[in-house]
């Protein structure tokens, strides 16, 4: 780069004054000083966060005028409640299904787009549109389309006017479908960027050696792409564990508790039933799940990155 030399501070031609030397202790302090505002904000956000964790150990609810410390009572209560375990089950099914489907479709779409056909190049420009719409608005639109009588889906697919997309037994799959609609492009553009950044030489070498396309995909491309896929998987899995927006607007957790994910359960406990402590217990447990999953997935990612970079574990 040749254009990056700093301009002279003054145009008069006099050499700039030499800066006063900065003492070493101040230099060492510099990154901390720069981070102070951010740390203050962090504290401002951590305070309610810690308070929320603390609520899980109180009997805090709108009907309790003076909440007291109750130890692990909430946890015992919640963990022995089948409704909570139903929520865990719904959340797990939702997160695993959505992540797997989105990853498979996203990688497939990325591979197809990488061919750069005319269709692909046009499509690439609008690929991200569903991703950039608010999930709650996506939920609203799909809700209008799911409507059995007036919705367009039953009409277009010829399902009559009684097929209920959000009925018992189907609702969970329908909200997963909406998740897939929104977030598959996320996986696709990440993986596509990954494919395009791969070095060409290994592929040329194996093409010279007469390797089949599938062999190259399996043995070269997939291992080299794996870190990119994993980044997408981590984001998608963590986010679907705490899904709320489009599920809430589509079903509000129903019918029954068929789509009552953990965050919707916490919402019902805290905001609808005004039992803050029970809601916070849900969130504390969900936070623990998210935290442990994140640590595991990040360690997997680290290994994959080292492998893709060529060093053996």
């Amino acid at each position: 780069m040749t254009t990056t030399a700093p301009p002279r501070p003054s145009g008069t031609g006099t050499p700039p004054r030499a800066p006063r030397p900065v003492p070493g202790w101040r230099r060492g302090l510099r990154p901390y000083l720069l981070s102070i505002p951010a740390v203050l904000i962090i504290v401002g956000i951590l305070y309610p966060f810690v308070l929320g964790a603390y609520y899980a150990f109180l009997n805090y609810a709108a009907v309790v005028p003076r909440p007291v410390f109750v130890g692990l009572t909430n946890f015992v209560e919640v963990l022995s409640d089948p409704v909570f375990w139903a929520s865990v089950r719904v959340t797990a099914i939702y997160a695993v299904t959505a992540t797997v489907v989105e990853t498979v479709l996203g990688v497939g779409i990325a591979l197809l787009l990488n061919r750069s056909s005319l269709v692909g190049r046009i499509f690439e420009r609008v690929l991200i549109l569903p991703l950039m719409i608010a999930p709650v608005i996506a939920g609203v639109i799909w809700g209008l389309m799911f409507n059995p009588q007036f919705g367009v889906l039953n009409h277009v697919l010829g399902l009559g006017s009684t097929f209920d997309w959000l009925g018992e037994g189907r609702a969970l799959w329908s909200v997963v479908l909406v998740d897939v609609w929104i977030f598959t492009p996320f996986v696709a553009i990440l993986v596509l960027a990954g494919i395009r950044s791969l070095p060409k030489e290994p592929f040329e070498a194996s093409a010279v050696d007469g390797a089949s396309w599938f062999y190259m995909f399996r043995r070269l491309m997939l291992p080299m792409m794996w870190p990119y896929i994993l980044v997408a998987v981590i984001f998608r899995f963590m986010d679907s564990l705490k899904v709320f927006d489009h599920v809430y607007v589509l079903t509000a957790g129903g019918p029954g508790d068929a789509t009552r994910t953990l965050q919707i359960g916490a919402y019902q406990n805290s905001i609808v039933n005004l039992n803050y402590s029970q809601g916070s217990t849900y969130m504390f447990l969900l936070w623990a799940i998210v935290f442990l999953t994140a640590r595991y997935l990040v360690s997997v990612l680290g290994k994959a990155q080292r492998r893709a970079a060529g060093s053996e574990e």
Partner: protein
Amino acid sequence: MAAKELTPGQRRFSPASLGADLVLLGWFVFSLFPLVWMVLLALKTNADQITTFFAFTPTLKNFGIVLSDEGTRLTSVNFTDALFNSVINCVGAVLVSLVIGIPAAYAAGRWQYRGSNDVMFTILSFRFAPELMVIVPLFVIYNQLGLFDTNVGMIWVLQLVTMPLIVWILRSYFQDLPAELEQAALLDGYTRRRAFMMVALPLVRPGIAASALLAFVFAWNNYVFPLILTGSRHTPVTVAVTRFLGGGGQAYYNLTAAAALIAALPPLIVALSIQRYLVRGLSFGAVKA
């Protein structure tokens, strides 16, 4: 025409590529149909919305209703005010995050100091924490401080959305910047601060713009924070749109679609304008495209 160089996995035309295009086309239809449907529904009259699917006479009346007092009467939320609130909240939240986040991102990108990773990962963890864990106590705190249903309250809580994004993306940009550039400036007699302001900052300007705009999109699209932490006076658009769904037994599908379309346009326009930077932004700097 000279044969274009192919990236790994690319192949030249074959009958199979026709099939691949058809598959892509299938996804294309699935992906865009709901958006097309939203536009169609927004252009229908009250009668047409339940009797027609694709053939109808379009009208722009719904947009007028949504943005006027008539819409306010139906939903008890003024949609124009909601748009205004969203703009204030999101611009405010992004500005606060930039002022606070740029120095922190620079410090983390330039130096490995004790605790730097802790600070960065704490910021990142906000992105992945379940929102309700923070909202419930904030609901109590906001009611005590009088921040419930205010724009200031929303700007504060939206830091959870905008800060991690801006700090992490900008850190990756500052890391890419060779330290020699600033050292050259220091040799030329610049102070540290001037070297940062005149050399480092201008060079990461694309990163700042992209991360600010992406943070704006995510702040705009946020739903769960305002759902609980605003009442009816400072409701942003995402909540205002859903108000059209439950209009006292009467269904206003066309109005809902019109409101959804208006609310969806700003993020869509912004996103399309920063497409080059999206991958890096969406992955928090993990994937550098």
